[in-house]
């Protein structure tokens, strides 16, 4: 019991200090100032009480006094020596003792019958102090409330001044009935907190009552506040996690209330310090009189607080925050019934917490839902995800975000503040590879510190420290991202959180609580406001809505495709019938013109020319109709795919166009043997005859040179890689589908095509030159080529420049898969 102060000092200064009370019972009064680390302080077994009340430890069996606080003479009028070992009734009289006895018995019965008998009247006093009787101190005549609880097999009886007149009995429920009704109506957490502060303050008369909320990292924030008008506001101030050390938090997970009547009120040690029967220190977690830690009183003194009341707010068995009351004008009495009222309030706040948060989130959820519904309707109506950003509303409007980006159809669609497209590309790739995004049911990734997970994110931390991402589909890269800016906004600390706690205090080489509570403003880097569960759920609901929309659109597209195929069929049938039916009158016109010309003895030269023109036009129309007929048939015939030797096919085609070569010198070059491809041989020949006759026709050079060649798949791939990196990539229409295909080509040294006309040459009857220039022609040849190639699932395209000749490329897919379905044949 009498450890010298020198040994305390030497222990404390050693490198690996043992607690000063090592090997003996702890007492705050004796060893409190030797604490070097808040997290090692035995706050639940301080061995002392606050000196304004007295505490007795009774044996459960016979209610004899085993321990007593050393101030019993001052509070109760009887010295400890006269109490220890004596029965309680000698102090409080047989009536009060019997009352206590009855309570203990009921409590025990209740514990036995728990779960069977509902609605018991007597309180369960295990770890739950309850009023038992009022005792009048003989030497002062002061009325003392006695409250009792049991812990670890002993009975703890605490005496405090009632703070009211003799017969006056306050009904704490009546005190807080109004508060309860208000708390139940709170629709937001801050409203709930405001009501709690105001009501606790109104109930107690404390100078300041705050709701102190813990953040995920343990630091705290003054969330709500009610204060005396002349006090500065602490609302919105943040305090580092160390300000409320872990042992203190643990106490608040177990008890609802922690009163400290007077910071300077002094401590009274228990006599003896440990239980005489068990040798164990008393567990005082639930004692209203429990002595505060020296660290705590010092901390309060530094803030000029003279008395405090702390209540816990719990949510789902976690300590969500505290209701902290501070008093600045001396000691503050909190008699039993007032404490009970406060405790009840704290419990109700805890119970209502979930409801208030739920209401707050429900309102938010409703707002998000309403916007998202509008968005989906908009997207469904306008037929594209891009409509999500056309607005109003846009994707930005639902969730509380700073920017949003949608990856859809191989590009980003952004609104608000977002990283650049290049940054988005890299981020998108990273996200797609995240395991979270692979989850079937919940492909979602959310963080309020992106750069911790994704270091390149530091570059755009200001706009996107927070990221909430969902994948719309797992197969393709279809992402929706929401960004939250960095909260560089300022955290206002109550004191500099970094300047502690290496200061050597007045008690030597030990830590001291922070002394400075000056406003300290700090920028928080790389962090955003965290995402709420309600926001994550909203994102998932949004995803579901979008999926439904996508499925609906897929159905719609399938329907449209069927319609399109049908109307194509009908168009072909129409072209076929029309050209037939047109031929009959045409034959008649031709005939009459012919007959007129034969009997034209008396006609003048001009009229004869007109008749000749009429005849010529009928013949021209005949060729046009033939082309149309042919074209319509191309789309309708079944393809007969086989292995074709392109070299042989080209030979046949050259034979067929031989007549066109005329007298002009023509060089046909085949640089290397042509490959084999899988195609319909007749159609392939027709493609070549059309391309070759085109090449022969549109040429003004002295000698027509035609090259017939091909590129193997790996050569095409190499070319793709090259063109992708040049500015030509976009102007030269190498289709991406050509990659990994065998590409065939026919190159000429002819007149070439202006870039702006390249799209025109494949159009039906679209001629770029005069009707009779270049030997005439219907202008259907290339249209037929394109239809033949596309019918086989391939593509045809041109590289050309005026005066430099043209090169027609085409490929037919190596596999049979992309064939368009054969169209029904409608015979006219």
């Amino acid at each position, binding site marked *: 019991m009498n450890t010298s102060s020198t040994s305390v000092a030497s222990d404390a200064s050693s490198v690996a200090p043992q607690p000063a009370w090592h090997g003996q019972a702890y007492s705050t009064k004796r060893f409190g100032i030797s604490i070097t680390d808040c997290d090692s302080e035995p706050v639940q077994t301080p061995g002392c009480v606050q000196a304004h009340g007295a505490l007795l430890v009774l044996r459960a069996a016979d209610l004899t006094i085993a321990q007593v606080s050393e101030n019993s003479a001052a509070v109760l009028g009887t010295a400890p020596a006269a109490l220890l070992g004596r029965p309680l009734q000698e102090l409080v009289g047989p009536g009060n003792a019997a009352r206590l006895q009855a309570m203990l018995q009921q409590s025990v019965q209740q514990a036995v019958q728990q779960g069977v008998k509902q609605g018991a009247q007597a309180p369960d006093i295990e770890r739950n102090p309850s009023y038992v009787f009022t005792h009048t101190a003989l030497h002062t005549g002061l009325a003392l409330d006695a409250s009792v609880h049991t812990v670890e097999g002993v009975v703890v009886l605490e005496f405090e001044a009632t703070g009211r007149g003799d017969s006056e009995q306050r009904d704490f429920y009546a005190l807080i009935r109004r508060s309860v009704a208000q708390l139940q109506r709170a629709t937001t957490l801050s409203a709930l907190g405001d009501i709690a502060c105001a009501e606790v303050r109104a109930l107690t008369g404390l100078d300041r009552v705050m709701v102190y909320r813990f953040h995920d990292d343990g630091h705290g924030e003054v969330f709500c506040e009610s204060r005396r008008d002349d006090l500065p506001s602490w609302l919105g101030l943040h305090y580092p996690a160390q300000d409320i050390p872990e042992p203190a938090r643990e106490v608040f997970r177990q008890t609802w209330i922690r009163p400290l009547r007077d910071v300077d009120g002094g401590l009274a040690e228990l006599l003896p310090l440990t239980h005489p029967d068990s040798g164990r220190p008393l567990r005082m977690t639930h004692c209203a009189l429990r002595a505060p830690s020296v660290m705590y009183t010092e901390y309060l003194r530094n803030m000029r607080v003279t008395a405090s009341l702390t209540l816990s707010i719990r949510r789902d068995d976690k300590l969500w925050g505290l209701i902290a009351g501070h008093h600045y004008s001396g000691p503050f009495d909190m008699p039993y019934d007032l404490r009970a009222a406060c405790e009840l309030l704290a419990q109700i706040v805890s119970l209502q917490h979930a409801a208030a948060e739920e209401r707050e989130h429900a309102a938010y959820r409703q707002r998000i839902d309403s916007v998202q519904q509008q968005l989906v309707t908009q997207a469904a109506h306008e037929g594209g995800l891009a409509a999500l950003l056309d607005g109003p509303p846009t994707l930005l409007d639902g969730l509380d975000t700073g920017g949003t980006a949608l990856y859809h159809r191989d590009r980003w669609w952004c609104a608000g503040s977002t990283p650049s497209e290049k940054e988005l590309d890299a981020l998108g790739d990273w996200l797609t590879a995240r395991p979270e995004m692979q989850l079937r049911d919940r492909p979602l990734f959310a963080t309020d510190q992106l750069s911790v997970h994704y270091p390149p994110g530091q570059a755009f931390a200001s706009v996107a420290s927070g990221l909430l991402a969902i994948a719309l589909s797992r197969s393709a890269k279809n992402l929706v991202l929401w960004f939250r800016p960095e909260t560089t906004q300022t955290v206002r600390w109550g004191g500099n959180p970094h300047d502690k706690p290496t200061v050597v205090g007045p008690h030597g080489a030990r830590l001291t609580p922070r002394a400075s509570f000056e406003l300290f403003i700090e920028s928080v880097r790389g962090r955003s406001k965290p995402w709420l569960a309600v926001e994550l759920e909203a994102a998932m609901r949004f995803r579901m809505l979008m999926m439904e929309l996508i499925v609906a659109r897929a159905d719609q597209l399938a329907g449209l495709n069927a319609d399109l195929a049908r109307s194509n069929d009908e168009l072909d049938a129409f072209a076929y019938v029309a050209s037939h039916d047109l031929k009959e009158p*045409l034959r*008649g016109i031709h005939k009459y013109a012919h007959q007129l010309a034969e009997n034209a003895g008396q006609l003048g030269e001009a009229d004869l020319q007109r008749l000749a023109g009429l005849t010529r036009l009928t013949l021209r129309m005949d060729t046009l109709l033939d082309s149309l007929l042919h074209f319509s048939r191309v789309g309708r015939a079944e393809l007969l795919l086989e292995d074709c030797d392109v070299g042989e096919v080209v030979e046949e085609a050259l034979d067929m166009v031989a007549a066109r070569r005329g007298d002009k010198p023509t060089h046909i070059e085949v640089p290397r043997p042509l490959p084999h491809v899988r195609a319909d041989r007749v159609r392939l020949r027709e493609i070549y005859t059309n391309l070759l006759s085109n090449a022969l026709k549109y040429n003004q050079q002295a000698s027509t040179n035609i090259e017939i060649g091909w590129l193997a798949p790996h050569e095409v791939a190499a070319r793709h890689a090259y063109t992708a990196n040049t500015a030509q990539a976009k102007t030269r229409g190498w289709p991406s589908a050509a990659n990994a295909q065998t590409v065939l080509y026919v190159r000429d040294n002819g007149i070439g095509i202006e870039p702006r006309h390249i799209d025109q040459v494949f159009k039906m009857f679209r001629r770029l030159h005069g009707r009779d220039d270049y030997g005439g022609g219907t202008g259907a040849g290339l249209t037929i080529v394109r239809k033949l190639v596309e019918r086989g699932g391939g593509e045809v395209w041109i590289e050309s420049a005026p005066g430099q000749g043209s090169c027609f490329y085409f490929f037919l897919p190596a596999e049979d898969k992309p064939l368009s379905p054969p169209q029904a044949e409608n015979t*006219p």
Partner: protein
Amino acid sequence: MMPLPEIILVEDSDEDADTVQQAVQRCSTPARLCRVQSGDACLVLLQQAQRELPALVLMDLNTHGMDGRETLRLIKSDPRLATVPVVVISTSANPRDLEHCYRAGANAYHLKPVRYTEHLEAMVAVLGYWLDRVVAHPGRGVQS
């Protein structure tokens, strides 16, 4: 005196019918041309029991009323009429039409060119062939 061989022409275009008429006139073998405008009329004619069967039916495919395809099918499926040569003259080069007509028993299939001179020549050649060269089925005229 032997009656002139009869040719039934099924053709709803007057111009085309006129061309055939001119072709008949140019033929070395004289013949009678009987023109009807539809397949129905042709069948009515053929089914008159007392009437002698024609030497040839020239059939346009796209006539109003019953079209040439159906008429051809009915003629060739009638035991009495099946031996009458039916030559199809059509604008259509559609392989489907060719297939259909030959399957139905058409004796020949000719295209009608738009160019008048070619058209006339084609008709003269067809008529000359069927009237001058072909040895007809012996049943002709026996049944009357």
